[in-house]
């Protein structure tokens, strides 16, 4: 596919440029000839850039996977109770075993994200399939309920400031070497999704069609839930949830390339990485020397893109524009 190649090359170039900008801008002036400059580069700037790219890619991929397994384009881990559930798990460990290692926290966040997302999937099974907007609505309600529980416990236990960093708006100013590496696990989970791309695409045709082709819809669903839960939990634990990436990037890519995930997922991953990194850079420059969290920028930008996606006039694809061709 010619168009896909162009988009891939374009996005790669964009990421290269954004990464270069991200490494060279910041409050501290860098002079690479001096060891202090070198340290800023390796301890702060490069990890921050990688963290933004990993977060964006993994969240975008998690968004696609979730949309395929629930067969609805309007859901993402941030609006299906996944992030709130991860935060609930994290909060529980922090309260019960404050000394627990980061690994235990990570596992707890993943497991509770998995439980929360499974509840979402069970819940929407009862909804009439034609009402496509009920699914995201149900997700928002579930997110609200779990979020309220988290907030209530947070108030009671004086943990609100932690919760704010997990759930409100993800940001990368705290990222330094040694404090973002969990995001590689998110990247790994997204990589697994790539290897199961065909399975997710077939599940997107519906459980009937998947069964007819010899797949177990339940097994594919479980794999998908695990990917979504792990990605979300790692992001919540390390930088905080970032809204809209999992929604707008997959929707744009589906428009351009379609739902053949094997072709689409690499593009989605690049798109997500570029978007989050761009938002992080914007947040760093517009009120310099202060910073606006990337999550806040995305909240505004993402909402705008999403509304545009909803209201933009439909245009036929190139193949369709060539007219009827029954041969």
């Amino acid at each position, binding site marked *: 596919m010619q168009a896909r190649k162009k988009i891939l090359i374009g996005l790669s170039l964009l990421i290269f440029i954004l990464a270069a900008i991200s490494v060279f801008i910041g409050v501290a002036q860098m002079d690479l000839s001096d060891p202090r400059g070198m340290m800023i580069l390796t301890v702060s700037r490069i990890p921050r850039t990688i963290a933004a790219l990993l977060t964006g890619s993994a969240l975008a991929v998690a968004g696609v996977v979730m949309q395929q397994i629930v067969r609805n384009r309007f859901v993402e881990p941030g609006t299906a109770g996944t992030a709130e559930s991860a935060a609930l798990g994290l909060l529980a460990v922090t309260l019960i075993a404050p000394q627990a290692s980061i690994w235990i926290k990570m596992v707890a966040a993943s497991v509770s994200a998995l439980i929360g997302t499974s509840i979402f999937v069970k819940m929407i099974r009862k909804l009439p399939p034609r009402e496509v907007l009920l699914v995201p609505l149900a997700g928002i309600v579930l997110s609200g309920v779990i979020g309220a529980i988290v907030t209530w416990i947070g108030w009671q236990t004086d943990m609100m400031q932690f919760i704010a960093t997990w759930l409100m708006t993800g940001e990368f100013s705290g990222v330094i070497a040694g404090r973002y590496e969990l995001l590689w696990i998110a990247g790994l989970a997204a990589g697994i999704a790539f290897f199961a791309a*065909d399975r997710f695409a077939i599940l997107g045709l519906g459980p009937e069609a998947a069964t*007819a*082709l*010899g797949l177990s819809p339940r097994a594919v669903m479980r794999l998908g839930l695990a990917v979504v839960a792990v990605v979300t939990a790692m992001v919540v634990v390390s930088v905080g949830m970032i809204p809209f990436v999992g929604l707008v990037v997959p929707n744009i890519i589906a428009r351009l390339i*379609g*739902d*053949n995930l*094997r072709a689409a997922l690499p593009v989605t991953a690049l798109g997500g990485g570029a978007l989050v990194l761009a938002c992080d850079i914007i947040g760093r420059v517009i009120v310099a020397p202060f910073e606006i969290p990337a999550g806040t920028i995305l909240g505004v930008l993402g909402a705008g893109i999403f509304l545009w996606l909803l209201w933009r006039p439909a245009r036929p694809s190139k193949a369709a524009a060539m007219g009827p061709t*029954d*041969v």
Partner: protein
Amino acid sequence: MIEIKNVSYAIGGAKILQDINTVIPKGSVTALIGPNGAGKSSLLNLIGRIEPLQTGTIDVDGQNVTTSHSGRLARTMAFLGQHTAVASRLRVSELVAFGRWPHCHGRPGPEDHEKVADAIAQFSLRGLADRFLDELSGGQAQRAHLAMTFAQDTPWVLLDEPLNNLDMAHSRILMRKLSDLRDAGKSVVIVVHDLNQAAAWADHLVAMKHGRVVVSGAPDEVLTPDWLSALYDTEVQVLRYADRPLVLSHV
């Protein structure tokens, strides 16, 4: 041969199928007929292991549909359901290629490419191969799904109302292809409402009503005024044309 033994099926207390015992012969085109709600789709879904069996057993060429490996069953039978509308934005060629999944698991070889190209050509989809499914007419989308089922290239083909949305010409083309499959040694089971298509192309009919098999046999035995009037609770005349029954029900 598909052997259906003592199959009953209920959804939330409602009896959908009751004690079905029948055999669908190998190497023939079998048509499931009967009024709306008779249970035809339910039975076909059970044969295609789309829904799990509750009581009774179904064997397809000796493979039990409950206990056999689903991946292996997907190389024995292809299934196309009654409701094919998908929300996925796939291109026609990509959808058809998924028909090869049971054989190649995503790593298509030359044979797989050839079968996909062949199925696309057979259903006159070559000019539409790069189109997204959501940019097709109802009949074009139905042909894309049929092409996927044909690409699967299995000894058994199960189709639930495959003539849905197809025009006269494409309906005839499809029925002829099904009889070609039969001539090539494969077996076909379809659900049809157009009894004249069944009369013209099927070798064996299974007539269902209220979740039971009312009668089964050759078209000449089943397509009689008595059986059809009882089946559909309406008066039906049957003439003969080209040595086959011709069912008149529209006036």
